[in-house]
């Protein structure tokens, strides 16, 4: 009872701060200086039609590298934590097989979902989308495969290989930017092309495809690790 009262008091205090913030907030009429710079120069310097993609991959590309690292750490720790202390000689699990509807539907849908994911991260610089969305869609396809056949042993080596190579190539492209163009992760190592074409915006499609593969592989490995645990 006391604990709940203290929690409510704390929430009331935080709530008054939020109310003060909300009352004093006024939406801007014009873009601030940073946003105006990005809006003016994204099309001419970077060549990407999606300004958010241009910010994520080039203007603030180092943050994206950090985020991919954090996701890699999370996936690794999940795999490590779940594998610790597991009995190595696993009794064969007897699970109820998935129904006919699910298996047939998966055979039809899983390639389409992977294709949609690849489309989303290949066109990240033209339409809303990009590496993270495409990677999440690919992980959903993997999830469907896991649900349809729970005993299927996912080759962790394949997922780990895809993830490692994507990461290495991402950093290698960044270093190429140091050598051939303005700085680390500069996208002008490839020609920027015309606005709106598929092969435009320099190295952004390449970088975002690698990010999409890496995120997809990491989320898939998290799901595969969780699915391989035993019922307690």
């Amino acid at each position, binding site marked *: 009872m006391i604990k709940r009262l203290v929690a409510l008091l704390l929430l009331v205090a935080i709530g008054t701060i939020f109310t003060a913030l909300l009352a004093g907030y006024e939406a801007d009429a014009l873009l601030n200086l940073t946003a105006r710079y990005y809006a003016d120069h994204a099309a001419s310097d970077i060549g990407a039609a*999606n300004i*958010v*993609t241009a910010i994520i991959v080039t203007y603030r590309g180092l943050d994206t590298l950090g985020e991919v690292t954090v996701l890699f750490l999370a996936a690794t720790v999940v795999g490590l934590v779940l594998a610790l202390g597991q009995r190595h000689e696993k009794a064969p699990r007897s699970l109820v097989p998935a129904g006919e509807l699910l298996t047939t539907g998966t055979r039809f849908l899983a390639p389409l979902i992977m294709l949609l994911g690849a489309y*989303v991260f290949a066109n990240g610089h033209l339409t*809303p*989308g*990009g590496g*993270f*969305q495409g990677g*999440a*869609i690919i*992980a*959903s396809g993997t*999830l469907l495969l896991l649900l349809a056949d729970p005993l299927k042993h996912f080759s962790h080596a394949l997922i780990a290989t895809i993830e490692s190579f994507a990461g290495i190539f991402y950093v290698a492209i960044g270093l190429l930017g140091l050598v051939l163009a303005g700085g680390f992760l500069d996208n002008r190592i490839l020609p920027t092309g015309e606005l709106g074409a598929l092969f435009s915006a320099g190295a952004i499609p390449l970088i975002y495809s690698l990010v999409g593969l890496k995120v997809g592989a990491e*989320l898939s490995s*998290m*799901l595969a690790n*969780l*699915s391989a*645990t*035993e*019922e*307690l």
Partner: protein
Amino acid sequence: MSILLTAMTAVLCLAMIGAALLAISGKALPVAILAAGLVSLVASVLFLILAAPDVAMTEAAIGSGLTTFLFFFVLGRVRAGERSGDDND
């Protein structure tokens, strides 16, 4: 057109708050997890109304898809612990 958009935003915000309250106080744990997935879904639509299509796509794929599945995976493994700590909150 704009009043329709404002009315839709108001309805969506109310739905989101209702789903959040259900997620906190739901009697059964699967209901709470599904309500949290509903919060993410409505938030994805709100992101689209706030002119942020990239964020809407990410939230729809990751927030209301993968997170709900992660919860149900783990819940399936700890079925017996579903009710622990619930009697005297």
